[in-house]
């Protein structure tokens, strides 16, 4: 087949030559060419291999509906499955064909064609089961996997895409004739309008066909130019080109993707696509229609193309893929192709129409007669034949006689469908049109208007009234446009879905889904087996499950099924179009909130100090916390943690606790509120004192803990765990507003406003005296669990005497901006006393020695305060608090609940492992009954051996007994169950 370059036009200029490579061979095309039009120019028809049978495939369409011509763009990180019919070429572009090995011409996989009689619909459900189930995993599945897939995996790619939000009154989707007319009506109105066009140029059928001869007595191209200019000059209509609306969500929420590098190679480091997120009050769908194909033997051969696509190549790209194509149609839509061919100085080799002579439009008759085109009415194509491209066709004419015609190109039209993809995504209802044989939009669910062929108006005679009527509720000017057509035909179609082959063999194939290699035989088989629901049929045969979602064929499948079942198409149903309209780039969806911007890092105000002082960080929620400090490169984590913890026990350590959540609670009824939120009672608590407090869920389980400082009955400051801060504040807000609106209380997060430093160790008091010489730190003046406000060098600070390590300790709260100065000050004052910073791991070790829990580590949402041995924290006299009632449910008062205990290895040399379980048997014979698990486990330099906290069944009464801990190597270690406190049990160090 020989293509022919026609005249230049505004889209293609012959002096702008571009070179590109396809499968390693260099070719030339012109600026503005798609890969497909450029390949056709070079007479390349074989473009890829099909999914299942590896059949040779060519270019079937000229747009986004393309099922066959998918290629790999090597020059763009090897992007797979790109539609050759929409991707524009650029200088140096490298393209490869897909799903073939070793080459496109000689593909080993085409051997599948030989076995195709067995590879029927759903064959894999019925075989690959013997002789042993291991065969599936080791033989069958690997073979299937290797054969499946289309393109090769792409290369690593870090895309830059941005997201743009729009809030508009009206969004018009599609910049074809109807979209332009709609946009024109809105010019200079009070509406913000967005007009979105997928292609580079506005105009739709004005550019793609010769259907229209005059608009308002002007050449269509001139009218188009003027109209676009008017729209561009208007203040209220914004045009987005190269932008495809892929998703129509509730409520009128549209997702559209804009390609920022059409016809040129994306530049590294630049935004290469934009995802538009559009909120609109009204959506006007003017996205036109899609032509469908027809099923007959070998309807997949390269050289077969939809007729409107052929016309688009002529009008848009200035190329006729063949000089004399045969046309086969069952409707009036291909009339304009005949007109376009003749206008270009070419003519069809034959025109075959399944309609009877009287139904064929007089215009078309005249045209065909005048140009001596062989005409076959009431005729059908029984099959196409050729190896790797079409060579001849077999026609059955009205008399039933068979005619064989040699040809190099066949143009098909099986009718047209409104492009209802977006309409059904919006949940609009469709209705089957018995006359036009297609589904048309019926009831919209959202404020959606459909215009033109998108609404099923396939003729132009009611153009003005249709638009004016549907837009009548807008305050805009009425439309009055005069249209003259070249082929004055009212859309008419005769039912034809499939032509049965002349000679049937086991290998005869008429395709219904080109990309997934589904044949009409597969459809029949599925019906035979009872898969008569359209969704079953789709899933069983994989019909319309390809990357094209069956845009040119799914209605045909419905037609065939309804005939087979002898039901109306409406009763058979239609499958749901799932978003997106066309495959949507992951990079575009991800936008800019990834890589370095994925989840912001939260840092303490003195983060840089940690960075400069050897801190190794851990992620705690979004926070970066110093995990431990490495004093030299060789120090291991274990060594560092042992050093840090030992130093706290012997001298003093300082921890940056700024990440702890801090909530300020104020108001007349703050006291009552706090009593309701926490288990503790704060009523008798003195002003200026602090209390360790627990917060439960309504299910009675421990949710958070912290220290509550009572400034007055009307003013509290609570700390929370680092990860729980937002939840606790959210919970307080919820109860304050929804349950106890009568309480006058307000709360806010002050986490970021204050840095918190925890200094603890036997030498802390000396350090504090030096650092804050004006403050009396004596035990009498500043007792345990009290706090004081001070001003230090003009900075208001709060010091709380509390400890999480078991040593004498103070927490200093400092406005974030002044934090570093004070931190550094303390460091220098503490030097002589051996003060050193410590990280979270040492802190965890120290608190575990003391038997203090960490919510989320020693609890898991199934532990009550009673289980933790913290019954003393429950304000028993309080009438109510969150979760109170749950503490007396039958399961919560059960004796043998899991309870917090301490664990030490019976042989002190033995190691324990966090997460391992406590069991009663020495030998593991699974399943083993488990008593519970080790929640925290460390090596203590103070104790000189490993120790752990665990929650185990009936734990409190098991203290003093022996058991076993499992190990990760599935052996056991003998352990003693002890009280969960390993250090300074009577709190001498804390309170003195």
């Amino acid at each position, binding site marked *: 087949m020989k293509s022919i370059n026609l005249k230049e036009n505004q889209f293609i200029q012959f002096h702008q030559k571009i070179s590109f490579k396809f499968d390693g061979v260099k070719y030339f095309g012109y600026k503005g060419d798609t890969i497909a039009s450029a390949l056709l120019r070079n007479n390349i028809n074989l473009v890829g291999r099909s999914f299942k049978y590896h059949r040779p495939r060519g270019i079937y369409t000229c747009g986004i509906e393309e099922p066959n011509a998918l290629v790999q763009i090597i020059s763009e990180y090897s992007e797979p499955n790109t539609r050759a019919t929409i991707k524009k070429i650029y200088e140096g572009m490298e393209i490869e064909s897909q799903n073939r090995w070793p080459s496109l011409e000689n593909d080993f996989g085409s051997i599948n064609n030989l076995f195709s009689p067995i590879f029927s619909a759903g064959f894999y459900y019925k075989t690959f089961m013997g002789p042993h189930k291991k065969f599936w995993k080791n033989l069958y599945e690997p073979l299937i996997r290797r054969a499946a897939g289309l393109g090769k995996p792409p290369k690593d790619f870090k895309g830059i895409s941005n997201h743009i939000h729009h809030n508009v009154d009206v969004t018009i989707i599609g910049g074809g004739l109807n979209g332009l007319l709609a946009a024109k009506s809105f010019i200079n109105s009070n509406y913000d309008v967005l007009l979105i066009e997928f292609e580079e140029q506005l105009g739709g059928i004005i550019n793609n066909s010769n259907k229209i001869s005059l608009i308002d007595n002007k050449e269509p191209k001139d009218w188009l130019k003027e109209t676009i200019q008017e729209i561009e000059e208007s203040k209220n209509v914004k045009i987005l080109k190269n932008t495809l609306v892929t998703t129509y969500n509730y409520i009128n929420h549209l997702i559209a993707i804009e390609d920022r590098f059409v016809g040129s190679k994306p530049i590294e480091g630049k935004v290469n696509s934009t995802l538009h997120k559009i909120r609109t009050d009204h959506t006007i769908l003017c996205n036109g229609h899609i032509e469908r194909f027809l099923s007959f033997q070998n309807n997949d051969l390269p050289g077969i193309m939809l007729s409107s696509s052929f016309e688009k190549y002529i009008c848009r790209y200035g190329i006729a893929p063949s000089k004399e194509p045969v046309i086969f149609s069952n409707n009036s839509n291909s009339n304009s192709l005949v007109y376009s061919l003749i206008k270009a100085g070419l003519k069809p080799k034959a025109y075959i129409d399944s309609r009877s002579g009287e139904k064929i439009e007089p215009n078309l008759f005249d045209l065909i007669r005048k140009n001596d085109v062989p005409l076959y009415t009431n005729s059908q194509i029984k099959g196409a034949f050729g190896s790797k491209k079409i060579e001849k066709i077999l026609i059955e004419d009205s008399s039933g006689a068979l005619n064989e015609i040699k040809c190099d190109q066949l143009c098909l039209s099986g009718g047209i469908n409104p492009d209802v993809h977006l309409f059904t995504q919006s949940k609009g209802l469709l209705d089957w049109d018995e006359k036009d044989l297609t589904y048309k939009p019926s009831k919209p669910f959202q404020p959606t208007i459909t215009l033109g062929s998108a609404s099923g108006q396939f003729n132009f005679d009611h153009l003005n009234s249709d638009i004016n009527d549907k837009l009548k509720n807008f305050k805009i000017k009425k439309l009055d446009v005069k249209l003259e057509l070249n082929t004055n035909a009212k859309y008419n179609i005769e039912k034809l879905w499939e032509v049965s082959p002349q000679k049937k063999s086991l290998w005869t194939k008429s395709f219904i889904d080109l990309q997934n290699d589904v044949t009409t035989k597969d459809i029949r088989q599925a019906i035979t087996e009872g898969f008569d629901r359209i969704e079953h049929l789709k899933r069983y045969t994989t019909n319309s499950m390809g990357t094209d979602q069956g845009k040119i064929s799914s209605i045909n499948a419905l037609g065939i099924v309804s005939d087979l079942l002898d039901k109306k198409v409406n009763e058979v149903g239609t499958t749901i179009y799932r978003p997106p309209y066309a495959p949507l780039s992951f990079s575009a969806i991800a936008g800019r909130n990834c890589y370095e911007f994925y989840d912001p890092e939260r840092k303490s105000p003195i983060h840089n100090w940690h960075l400069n002082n050897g801190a190794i960080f851990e992620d705690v929620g979004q926070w970066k916390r110093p995990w431990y400090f490495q004093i030299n490169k060789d120090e291991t984590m274990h060594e560092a943690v042992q050093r840090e913890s030992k130093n706290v026990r012997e001298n003093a350590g300082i921890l940056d606790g700024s990440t702890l959540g801090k909530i300020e609670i104020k108001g007349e009824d703050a006291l009552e509120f706090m009593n309701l939120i926490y288990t503790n009672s704060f009523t008798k608590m003195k002003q200026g004192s602090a209390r360790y407090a627990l917060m439960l869920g309504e299910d009675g389980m421990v949710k958070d803990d912290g220290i509550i400082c009572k400034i007055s009955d009307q003013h509290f400051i609570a700390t929370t765990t680092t990860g729980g801060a937002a939840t606790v504040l959210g919970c307080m807000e919820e109860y304050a507003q929804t349950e106890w609106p009568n309480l006058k209380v307000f709360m806010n997060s002050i986490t970021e406003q204050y840095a918190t430093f925890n200094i603890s160790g036997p030498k802390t008091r000396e350090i504090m005296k030096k650092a804050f010489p004006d403050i009396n730190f004596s035990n009498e003046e500043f007792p345990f669990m009290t706090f004081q406000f001070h001003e230090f060098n003009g900075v208001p600070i709060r010091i709380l005497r509390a400890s999480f390590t078991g040593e004498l300790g103070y927490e200093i709260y400092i406005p974030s901006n002044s934090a570093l100065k004070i931190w550094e000050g303390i460091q220098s004052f503490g030097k002589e006393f051996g003060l050193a910073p410590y990280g979270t791991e040492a802190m965890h070790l120290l608190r575990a020695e003391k038997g203090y829990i960490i919510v989320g580590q020693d609890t898991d949402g199934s532990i009550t305060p009673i289980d933790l041995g913290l019954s003393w924290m429950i304000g028993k006299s309080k009438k109510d608090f969150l979760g109170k*009632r749950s503490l007396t449910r039958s399961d919560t008062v059960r004796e043998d609940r899991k309870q917090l205990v301490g664990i030490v290895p019976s042989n002190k040399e033995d190691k324990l492992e966090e997460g391992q379980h406590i069991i009663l048997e020495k030998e593991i014979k699974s399943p083993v009954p488990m008593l519970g698990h080790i929640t925290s486990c460390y090596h203590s330099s103070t104790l000189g051996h490993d120790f752990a906290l665990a929650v185990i069944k009936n734990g409190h009464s098991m203290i003093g007994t022996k058991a076993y801990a499992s190990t990760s190597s599935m052996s056991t270690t003998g352990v003693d169950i002890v009280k969960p406190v390993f250090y300074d049990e009577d709190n001498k160090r804390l309170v003195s």
Partner: protein
Amino acid sequence: MLIINCPYCGPRDQSEFSNGGEAHVKRPDGSKEIGDREWGEYVFIRANPKGLFYERWVHTHGCRKWFNCVRDTSTDKILVTYKLDEKKPNLNNFKSVVKTPSGEPEVGSGNFTVEK
């Protein structure tokens, strides 16, 4: 992606809000004796109707205010939002599009996109 009309701030994108489940559920008075079962129902059971639903939202990334709403869970259509201290609207004022308890509304909702 819903648009929710915060009674304090006006219509905003769904992503600014958090859902709070069923509305108008009164927490049992802690000072009164209630059975395990009744308490369990309060803690764990919330209405989950298909169709009209009183629910709560909070404008988390906005004014932080809680408010109530009537939404049709079969279509996600929000029929009204109102402040916590406003009177609970009568559901009879709204039309539910669900004809049977677990039926599909007359919109293409997964099972039917074809007009019946």
